[in-house]
């Protein structure tokens, strides 16, 4: 029964996507939106039913594998169209469908005036379907399928406003980097098949400990390849550059895909393959360290950039860094818990940001925003709640989830203490940049747009411009129309944000150390064979960690207050004082340039070389050379054919002589 519900979880979004996509001419926009919302809600309901079914099983057999048909089977490499349901996948299903439902509801209102409404919902439903394939996959090939399909959906949605050059470029970048990640997974899957003879989760996780010894090179290679996929999808260094550009997509997309769900797939992957990573601790450490590096670097960038959505995007990278550290060091349930809470508050932050951006007529620069507290009180409130949760303010959901990871690092001691320190610094930065947004946007005298909203009661109708380039764009297809939608005025948006705000505040109660620890217990069947399953800090240590985290968060908020409210001149001074560091951060640590230098430019150079040099000289040259040789031989023959009779006779004489000499030599 559980399997059936799980299949239905997959079915509804797919059906929704197809229905909306195929009926784009027949159905009115609203109906399409409703179908989209309904499909996801239905998936959520089925997910809950699957959860109930699963919880009905005894703890040791809480996993179900189910296969529809044999997808392909050659040379022992058997691939089923199969799913694998266990607490981890159900957890992900619930997070994904839950958050998706809310974001669909939000989009229903937010995208109202967009002319590609059908397309948007079709893509969005397809994304949810793909994401569910990813989390429910029963073997590595299906995982790859889901993995790549979310990549595709992400691409489609980033390039949703496809007439913007910046959007299509960003989509391309995201897609190609994700494909590189996919290749990591291909190779991992092939290696797994080669060593274990199967790609099915069940068999692989069962046989891996028997086949591999700890840190055997094969298993390390497998895990590193898996990590390539994980890093690419989760925007971890050095594959992180696409995420900031992905903000070209509509805000609900950023909220759903590039904050709440898809980008956390890497975390899910490591958790899913924890058996393998525990056999390859080196690879797990790599994951953790990359997560740490990303969280610190992304934090510094978030402090410097001024594009509202990009700040949140870097914050996302940073938070995923935390999750990577979490699953890298063995704090699986903490990592997954942070994944969930982050989904709530980050989705909320994006929604609020979207609301503000709408009010700003698509302007995204926080330097130009001011005084929205009065103009948009509801949005302001949700923004504050999101920021508090993000910075780990005591009592908020983020406080419980983030500090659990930080604490676990400290608990593991050794070199992990350095991670602990790093993560604390990161936490401080998180608090600062979170409240940088709040303090720059909300208080103070209203800016022009905010004032307009206060005065006229509706948002300003700006020229449709590309926020990245400020070019005027045509709105005929695929752009939000002149009407903009803000949370204050749209029920759907308000509803979704309210629920998320609520969850951002209270989700922490699921995992109060020493009290309930619902998430840990729920996920226990998945991680029961893990070496870290029964290693966790004592309740006291946990609370100590929470206290530290809370203090740092408060300190960070205070610093932000100091910088942006009390002494607003200070940031400028810092900027001048440490201009090198500022430049570095504003330029995102030159990540794009580095990738360009190391990968893109060489590849393009190879292409140019092939095209302009090799093809021209070697291929065409060789062809022309042979042709020319033949032609000149022909010219020689024709030259000899001078028309001169006596020349012909001479050549004959030559021939006779040659043959005579040949035969004379033969007769010797």
């Amino acid at each position, binding site marked *: 029964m559980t399997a059936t519900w799980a299949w239905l979880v997959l079915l509804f979004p797919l059906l929704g996507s197809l229905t909306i996509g195929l009926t784009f001419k027949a159905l009115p926009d609203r109906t399409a939106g409703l179908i989209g919302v309904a499909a996801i809600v239905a998936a959520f309901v089925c997910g809950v039913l699957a959860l109930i079914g699963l919880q009905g099983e005894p703890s040791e057999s809480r996993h179900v594998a189910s296969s529809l048909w044999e997808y392909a089977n050659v040379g022992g490499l058997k691939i089923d169209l199969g799913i694998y349901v266990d607490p981890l996948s159900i957890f992900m299903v619930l997070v994904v469908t839950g958050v998706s439902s809310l974001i669909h509801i939000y989009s229903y209102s937010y995208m109202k005036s967009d002319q590609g409404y059908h397309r948007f919902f079709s893509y969005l439903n397809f994304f949810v379907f793909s994401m569910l394939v990813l989390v429910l996959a029963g073997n590595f090939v299906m995982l790859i399928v889901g993995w790549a399909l979310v990549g595709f959906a992400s691409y489609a949605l980033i390039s949703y406003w496809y007439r913007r050059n910046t959007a299509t470029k960003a989509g391309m970048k995201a897609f190609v980097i994700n494909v590189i990640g996919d290749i990591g997974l291909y190779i991992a899957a092939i290696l797994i098949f080669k060593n274990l003879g199967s790609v099915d989760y069940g068999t692989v996780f069962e046989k891996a400990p028997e086949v591999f010894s700890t840190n055997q090179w094969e298993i390390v290679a497998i895990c590193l390849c898996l990590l390539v996929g994980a890093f690419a999808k989760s925007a971890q260094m050095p594959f992180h550059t696409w995420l900031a550009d992905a903000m070209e997509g509509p805000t609900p997309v950023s909220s759903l895909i590039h904050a709440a769900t898809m980008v956390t797939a890497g975390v899910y992957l490591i958790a899913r393959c924890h058996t393998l990573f525990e056999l390859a601790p080196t690879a797990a450490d790599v994951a953790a360290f990359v997560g740490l590096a990303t969280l610190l670097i992304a934090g510094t960038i978030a402090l410097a950039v001024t594009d509202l959505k990009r700040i949140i995007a870097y914050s996302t990278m940073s938070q995923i860094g935390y999750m990577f550290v979490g699953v890298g060091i063995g704090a699986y349930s903490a990592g997954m818990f942070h994944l969930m809470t982050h989904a709530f508050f980050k989705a909320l932050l994006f929604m609020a940001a979207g609301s503000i951006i709408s009010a700003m007529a698509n302007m995204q620069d926080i330097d130009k925003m001011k005084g929205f507290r009065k103009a948009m009180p509801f949005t302001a409130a949700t923004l504050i709640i999101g920021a508090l949760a993000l910075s780990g303010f005591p009592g908020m959901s983020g406080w419980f989830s983030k500090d659990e990871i930080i604490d676990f690092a400290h608990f593991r001691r050794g070199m992990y203490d350095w991670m602990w320190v790093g993560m604390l610094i990161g936490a401080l930065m998180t608090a600062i940049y979170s409240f940088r947004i709040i303090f720059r946007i909300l208080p103070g005298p209203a800016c022009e747009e905010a004032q307009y909203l206060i005065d006229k009661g509706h948002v300003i109708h700006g020229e449709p411009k590309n926020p990245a380039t400020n070019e005027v764009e045509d709105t005929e297809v695929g752009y939000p129309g002149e009407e903009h939608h803000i949370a204050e005025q749209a029920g759907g948006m308000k509803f979704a944000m309210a629920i998320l705000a609520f969850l951002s505040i209270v989700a922490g109660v699921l995992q109060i150390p020493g009290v309930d620890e619902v998430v840990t217990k729920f996920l226990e069947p998945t991680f029961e064979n893990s070496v870290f399953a029964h290693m966790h800090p004592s309740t006291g240590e946990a609370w100590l960690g929470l206290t530290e985290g809370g203090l740092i968060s408060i300190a960070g908020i205070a610093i932000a207050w100091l910088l942006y409210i009390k002494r607003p001149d200070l940031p400028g001074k810092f900027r001048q004082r440490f201009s090198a560091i500022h430049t570095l951060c504003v330029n995102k640590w030159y990540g794009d340039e580095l990738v360009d230098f190391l990968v893109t430019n060489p590849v393009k150079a190879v292409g140019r070389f092939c095209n302009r040099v090799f093809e021209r000289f070697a291929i065409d040259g060789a062809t022309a050379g042979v042709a020319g040789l033949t032609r000149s031989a022909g010219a020689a023959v*024709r030259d000899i*054919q*001078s*028309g*001169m*009779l*006596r020349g012909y*006779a*001479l050549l004959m*004489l030559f021939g006779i002589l040659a043959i005579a000499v040949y035969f004379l030599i033969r007769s010797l």
Partner: protein
Amino acid sequence: MDIEWYIVLSALLFTVGFIGVLVRRNPVVVLLCLELMLSAGALSLLAFSRMLGNQDGQVFVLIVLVVAACEVVVGLGLVVAMYRRRLPLDVDEMKELKG
């Protein structure tokens, strides 16, 4: 007289005829040189005929003479035809066809 001498003589005549074809430009003279080459062949045939004591070669030579005569007739016919067309009688001028 050894037969070799006759053969060598015929080879020499053949060579002289060939040289004539190579160096002369008047088609009439070229035809004469062809006669030389054919008569060289005839001479060697006769020499071998004598060597073998076999008269087949002699009959062959008779045929050769006929052939030579026929070639001359057609060749001279062509020369006359060209002359009538006021074409230059110079084998080096016959270069319309080339390449």
